[in-house]
C-alpha cells in the first residue's frame, strides 16, 4: 500500500514538473522577448523606415508589408474556404469527390511551409511572371491558409444543429436559401474565430514569403501589388543573418519580434475570447 501511495505521489509530482518546465521555458522566452524588445520600442520605431542599412531607424514598411500580405491572402482564401466548406457540408456528393477533396485538404495542411515557398516561387513568381511581389507572396500564403480556413468553416457549419436545416427546408426553402439564410449566419461567429486564428498564422510565416514576396531592405512602401515588400517575420530573420553590425541589429530584431508577437497574439486572443463568449451565450 505504501509503495502504491509513493508511486502515486511520485508520478503526479513528475507530471507537475513537466508542466512546470514548460511554463518556465515559456516565461523565460516571453520575458526575454518583452524585455529586450521593450528597450527599442518607441513611436519612431513603429512609424519610420529603417536607416543606415538596417542598423537604425524603424520597421514601418515591414508592418505595412505584413498587413497587406495578410489582408490580401485572407481575402483570397476566405471566400474559397467558405465555399468549399459549403460544398462539403451541404452538398457532399458524389462521395468519392468529397473524399478526394478531404484528402487534399489534409495533405495540404501537412505540407511544410518551405515547400509552399518553393511552390509559390515556381508557379507564381516564375511561371506566371509575377516576380517577387506582394501578390505572389499573398497568393502563396492564401494557399497555405486555405486548409485551415476550410477546416474551421466546415467544423463551424457542422456545428449548426440539423433541426435548423430541416425547419428551413420544411418551409419550402431551397438548399441555397437554407445555407445563405440559416446555416452561414448561425455558423458565422465560429467561422470568424477560425479565420482569425489563420490570420495569426499567416502574419507570422516566414519561409513561404522568402522567395515570393519579401525583401531585406526597403525604405519605401509598396506602391502596387507587383512590388516586393518588407515583412515583419522576414525582417527578424534578415536582421539576424545579414549585415555586419550584429550589436546594432539584434536589438532591432527583438523589437520587431515584440511587435510581431503583439500583433499575432492579440489577434489570436481576440479569436479565443470570441469563441469563449459564443460557448457561454449559445442557446442551442
Amino acid at each position, binding site marked *: 500500500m505504501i509503495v*502504491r501511495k509513493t*508511486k*502515486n505521489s511520485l508520478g*503526479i509530482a513528475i*507530471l507537475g*514538473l*513537466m*508542466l512546470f*518546465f*514548460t511554463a518556465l*521555458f515559456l516565461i523565460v*522566452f516571453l520575458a*526575454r*522577448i518583452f524585455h*529586450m524588445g521593450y528597450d527599442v520600442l518607441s513611436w519612431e520605431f513603429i512609424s519610420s523606415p529603417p536607416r543606415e542599412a538596417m542598423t537604425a531607424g524603424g520597421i514601418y514598411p515591414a508592418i505595412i508589408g505584413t498587413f497587406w500580405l495578410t489582408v490580401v491572402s485572407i481575402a483570397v482564401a476566405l*471566400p*474559397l474556404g467558405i465555399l*468549399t466548406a*459549403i*460544398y462539403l457540408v451541404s*452538398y457532399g456528393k458524389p462521395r468519392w469527390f468529397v473524399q*478526394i*477533396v478531404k484528402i*487534399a485538404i*489534409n*495533405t*495540404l495542411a*501537412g*505540407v*511544410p*511551409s*518551405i*515547400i509552399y515557398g*518553393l*511552390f509559390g516561387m*515556381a508557379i507564381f513568381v516564375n511561371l506566371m511572371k509575377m516576380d517577387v511581389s506582394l501578390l505572389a507572396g499573398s497568393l502563396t500564403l492564401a*494557399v497555405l491558409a*486555405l486548409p485551415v480556413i476550410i477546416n474551421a468553416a466546415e467544423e463551424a457549419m457542422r456545428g449548426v444543429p440539423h433541426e435548423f436545416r430541416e425547419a428551413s427546408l420544411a418551409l419550402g426553402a*431551397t*438548399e*441555397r436559401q437554407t*445555407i445563405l439564410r440559416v446555416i452561414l449566419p448561425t455558423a458565422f461567429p465560429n467561422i470568424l474565430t477560425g479565420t482569425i486564428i489563420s490570420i*495569426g498564422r499567416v502574419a*507570422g*510565416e516566414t*519561409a513561404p514569403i*522568402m*522567395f515570393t514576396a519579401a525583401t531585406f531592405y526597403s525604405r519605401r512602401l509598396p506602391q502596387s501589388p507587383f512590388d516586393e515588400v518588407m515583412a515583419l*517575420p522576414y525582417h*527578424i530573420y534578415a536582421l*539576424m*543573418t545579414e549585415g555586419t553590425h550584429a550589436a546594432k541589429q539584434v536589438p532591432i*530584431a*527583438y523589437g520587431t*519580434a515584440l511587435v510581431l*508577437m503583439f500583433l*499575432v497574439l492579440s489577434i489570436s*486572443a481576440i479569436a*479565443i475570447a470570441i469563441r*469563449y463568449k459564443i460557448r457561454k451565450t449559445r442557446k442551442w
Partner: protein
Amino acid sequence: MISYKDKLFKGITYVASLFVIVFLFGIIYSIFREGLPLFNVVSIKEFLTSTEWYPTHAEPEFGIYTLLLGSFYVTLGALLIAIPLGLGSAIFISEVASPKLREIAKPVIELLASIPSVVYGLFGMAFLAPLLREWLDLQTGLNIFSSSIILGMMVVPIIASMSEDAISTVPKSLREASFALGATKWETITRVVLPAAKSGIIGSVLLGFGRAIGETMVVLMVSGGSAQIPKSIFDSVRPMTSTIAAEMGETVIGDLHYQSLFAISIVLFIITFITNLITELVFLKRSSR
C-alpha cells in the same frame, strides 16, 4: 428560375472545392517538375546516400545524407523534449489540475501555438545559443542540442493541446470505475486513461513530428548549418529545410543546384506525406470506434 440560381450556387461551391485539389497538384507538379531533372545527372541512390554536399563546387556533389541525418537528429531531439513535456503537461492539466488552472491553461497553450517560428529562432540564436556556449564551453551554441530545445518547445503546445483533447474525451465513467476498484490516481491515469486516449496521443506525436521535420526558421537560425555527420549533440548540422532556405537565393533558375534543392523538397514532401497518411489512419481508427 429558383432552380437556376440554385444550380449556379452549387456549381460555384463545386468549382471552389476543386481549388484545393488544383493547389495540391500544383505543389506536387512544381516540385517534381523542378526537382526531377537532377536525377538525369545524379542517381537517386547517390543523392540519398552520399555524404558529399558541395552544390557550388566546380565539380558539384549532391549527396543529402548529412542533411537527412541533420533533419532526423534535430527532430528526434525535439520530440524527446516535447513528448514528455507536452504529454505530461496535458495529463496534469486534465487529470490533476483544478478546474480554474485548466480554464487558464488551455487557452494559454493555444495562444502559444500561434507564436511565429521566427521568434523562436531569434530566441535560440540570440539568447540560448550564446548562453549554452558559455556554460558548456562549446565551440558554437548553434547545434543539435540547442535547436532541439527550441524546436521541442515549439512542438510542446501542439502535442499538449491535442493530447489534452484526446484525454478529456475519455468518459468520466471509466475513471470512476477505476477509482471504485481502489486504484490510485496514478494507476488510473497509466492503466485506464492513457490506454483509452492512446490513438489521439499517438496522433498528436505524429503531428508534432511532421511539424518539427518540416519547420524551417528555427533550424535555419539555430542548427549551425554545417553539412557534416555529427559526432555529438553539440555539433552543428544542416537539416533539409534550412538547406533549401539558405541556398535558394544563390541559385540560378534551372541550374543543377536549383534542381537539387527542389529534389530535397521532394524528399521532404514524401516524408511529411507518409507521416500525414499514418496520422490519418490513426485518427480514422479513432473516429470509427
